């Protein structure tokens, strides 16, 4: 290994993290051990290294003991590397003279045998002490941040984030997969706990989006390609053909009225299939943009080519264009906010609740549409035969808190079940039964709403419903749906006959969440929702800089929380944009000319085409701007000519050596 020109003077700091580390690891013992390692000038343990006094301690020691390398042994570098790098800078050292040792997530939190944990901690600290000696001074490259932002998903979270960003003067591209923005919230009639009308609070926001000079709204569109990096993303958006020219259409319904189909014939997506629409349609009267769509899978013109095209004739603005093709828009943005929302649990997955088998078993979303005045039943809660139900059973936790389906609590179902109980009672006067496991009503005014329901003559039965059947055993049960449940309050199994069953379905990750995750290079947590960088400290950040998340795409949440999170994501994006530039991690690869043999084996290895060949010099050349710092070329260079900043060979080799060398 090479000689150091300067004298290496290392300071080692072992963090207690309160009891988090000190409870398992002998922090004073490790600090004492580290003090005897080569080049270590000073070694200390401290209660909270990340706290202000902890950081000041490092700075003081740098000055007092002329330290030029620092090892901080605490939590994961993914959490606090930046904190301690900043502490080095404050102390007058280059930030890259820091090496962190993860003795919390990788040691104290995962091991119970204290002897083994201490041995491991000692090994890791020793490895870091060996490594840090080889670390070198680096500078972060600054790149400008494009102030434009892409928001994917036009539900309430996306709408809120878009308006905040646009009001702050940023140019926003809002991409929505469906023909209209509004998301799930547009389906609802009233929102809990205030029972204010969803449309009254949502639709003005939707039209603000449409009218805002800073927002470009692309509905019926999907992101198809993403490249680049924080501050400088290049994105391709594919606009699906709606066969109606958006700029010309005014949403007058003339085409819909004149369609060759006199009545709706195809399941209306917006009403969850409970009503029918024509091949040319508008999702709902307040759709934004208010532009018709022609569904090419059902339109006679596209199926047979033999339609008289009465819709086109009816349009006095000549807005219908059967020759429309998918259009790819290329944009450049600096930041991205993903607000792609959730999918409601498919109740067919639990056959014992009879959804899809018994016509009067509904999902909560279907009932939401029914109670909505603009829904398929014009606000009437009715059975399939059109009559009013006299008794309704609401099953909580369908596809939530269930080992067989989803383990998580979907957070919104208790509250919306209470809301539906109230609305159903109001609309029909029926007996309403709520079958719950636990009532979960945390939130401002939520518990009070539950309290109100308790006094509204709604029945509450604690127990998970075992089965919904039509198997009557008494004359009372004849013609009814029988809900079999263990009432855990009274400790007996009950059979409750009802006319209508409502399944309060939980929230799941969307089917395309994985595709979106891959497009934007972010991660999902175990259940498939987007993974935040840190659950508490960075709840709207992702591990990909410049990509933020908000709303139910990150986990089940209600409207107030989604809006709050959207605001947080917008603020994070704005902070990045207004700082004007980002500093890139200096982990790029570089080539030592004298060692390069010109074998070209690195050229095809690089996924970013960052390596070119200089024919004159017969050497490879790395374009630093394109290099993302994976280090794959470094490992593949047969001459050892390619090296990687921050992950130099000798740094890693000394770390390996340090792990196993029995120095003391």
């Amino acid at each position, binding site marked *: 290994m090479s000689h150091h020109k300067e004298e290496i003077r290392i300071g080692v700091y072992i963090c207690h993290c309160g009891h988090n580390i000190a409870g398992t690891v002998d922090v004073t013992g490790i600090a004492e051990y580290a003090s005897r390692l080569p080049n270590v000038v000073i070694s200390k343990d401290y209660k909270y290294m990340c706290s202000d006094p902890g950081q000041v301690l490092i700075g003081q020691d740098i000055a007092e003991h002329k330290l030029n390398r620092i090892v901080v042994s605490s939590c*994961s*570098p*993914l*959490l606090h590397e930046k904190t301690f790098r900043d502490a080095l800078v404050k102390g007058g050292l280059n930030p890259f003279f820091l090496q962190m040792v*993860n003795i*919390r*997530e*990788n*040691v104290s*939190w*995962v*091991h*119970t*045998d204290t002897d*083994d*944990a201490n*041995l*491991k901690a000692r*090994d*890791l600290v020793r*490895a870091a002490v060996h490594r840090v000696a080889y670390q070198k001074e680096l500078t972060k490259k600054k790149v400008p941040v494009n102030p434009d932002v892409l928001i994917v998903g036009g539900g309430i979270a996306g709408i809120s984030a878009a308006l905040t960003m646009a009001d702050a003067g940023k140019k926003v591209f809002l991409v929505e997969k469906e023909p209209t923005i509004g998301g799930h919230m547009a389906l609802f009639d009233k929102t809990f706990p205030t029972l204010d009308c969803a449309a009254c609070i949502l639709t003005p926001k939707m039209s603000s989006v449409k009218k805002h000079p800073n927002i470009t709204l692309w509905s019926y569109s999907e992101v198809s390609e993403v490249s680049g990096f924080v501050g400088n993303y290049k994105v391709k958006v594919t606009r699906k053909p709606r066969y109606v020219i958006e700029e010309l259409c005014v949403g007058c319904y003339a085409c819909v009225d004149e369609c060759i189909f006199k009545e709706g014939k195809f399941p209306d997506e917006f009403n969850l299939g409970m009503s029918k629409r024509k091949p040319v349609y508008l999702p709902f009267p307040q759709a934004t943009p208010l532009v018709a769509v022609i569904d090419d899978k059902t339109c006679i013109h596209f199926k047979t080519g033999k339609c008289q095209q009465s819709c086109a004739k009816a349009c006095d603005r000549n807005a219908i264009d059967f020759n429309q093709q998918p259009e790819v828009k290329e944009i450049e943005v600096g930041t991205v906010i993903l607000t792609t929302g959730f999918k409601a649990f498919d109740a067919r997955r639990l056959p014992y609740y009879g959804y899809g088998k018994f016509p009067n078993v509904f999902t909560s979303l279907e009932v939401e549409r029914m109670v909505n005045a603009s829904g398929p039943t014009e606000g009437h809660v009715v059975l399939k035969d059109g009559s009013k139900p006299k008794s309704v059973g609401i099953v909580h936790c369908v596809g939530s808190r269930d080992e067989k389906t989803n383990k998580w609590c979907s957070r919104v179902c208790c509250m919306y079940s209470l809301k539906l109980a109230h609305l159903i009672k109001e609309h029909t006067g029926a007996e309403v039964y709520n079958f719950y496991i636990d009532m979960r009503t945390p939130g401002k005014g939520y518990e009070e709403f539950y309290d109100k329901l308790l006094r509204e003559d709604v029945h509450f039965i604690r127990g998970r419903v075992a089965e919904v059947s039509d198997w009557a055993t008494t004359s009372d049960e004849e013609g009814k749906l029988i809900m079999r449940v263990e009432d855990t309050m009274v400790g007996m199994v009950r059979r409750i006959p009802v006319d209508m069953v409502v399944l309060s379905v939980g929230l799941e990750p969307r089917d395309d969440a994985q595709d979106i995750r*891959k497009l934007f*290079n972010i*991660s*999902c*947590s*175990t259940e498939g929702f987007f*993974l935040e960088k840190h*659950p508490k400290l960075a709840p709207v950040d992702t*591990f990909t800089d410049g990509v933020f998340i908000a709303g139910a795409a990150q986990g089940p949440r209600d409207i107030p929380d989604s809006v709050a999170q959207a605001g947080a994501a917008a603020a994070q994006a704005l902070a990045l944009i207004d700082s004007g530039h980002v500093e890139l991690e200096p*982990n790029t690869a570089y080539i030592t000319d004298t060692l390069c043999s010109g074998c070209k084996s690195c050229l095809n*290895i690089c*996924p*970013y085409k960052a390596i070119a060949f200089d024919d004159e010099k017969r050497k490879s050349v790395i374009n630093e701007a394109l290099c*993302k*710092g*994976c*280090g*794959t070329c*470094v*490992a*593949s260079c047969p001459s050892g000519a390619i090296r*990687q900043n921050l*992950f130099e*060979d000798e740094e*890693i*080799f000394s*770390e*390996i*050596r340090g*792990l*196993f*060398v029995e120095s003391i």
Partner: protein
Amino acid sequence: MSDNQINKQAIPANWKPRIAAFFCNWCTYTASDLAGVSRLKYPATIRVIRIMCSGRLDPQFVTDAFAEGADAVLIGGCHPGDCHYANGNYKCLRRVHLLKKVLKQMGLEEERLRLEWISASEGKRLAEVVSEMSEAILKLGPCKVKQVVEHYEK
């Protein structure tokens, strides 16, 4: 007497394996953090070295780890198709295939080198892999490469 028996006799009392682990920053290292945050428990056998991508894994890291005294080497990367850098994990896979052949010729048991795809969400999987591997290496006993290297260096 089979080799196995010789090895068994050679396992010192209270010996515990030490496994050098090369984890990519984006998936497996994050999974190790998740295992921590979730307070999952696994044996204190692995010593993690963080690299940005499993594609950065120089085969020499592995041979060097054995030469320095590792009893086994675990490499963790993103699942196929999920690599943060498009396809570094495939490059790693190629190298590991070759490495396995080389190590076998050197007389090393196959179990001593393991490549696993562990995503950022698979903290549980990480704990399982480490537990499994620790158990397997515990049965094999200490790796003798270091002794051999030292013998030749003398």
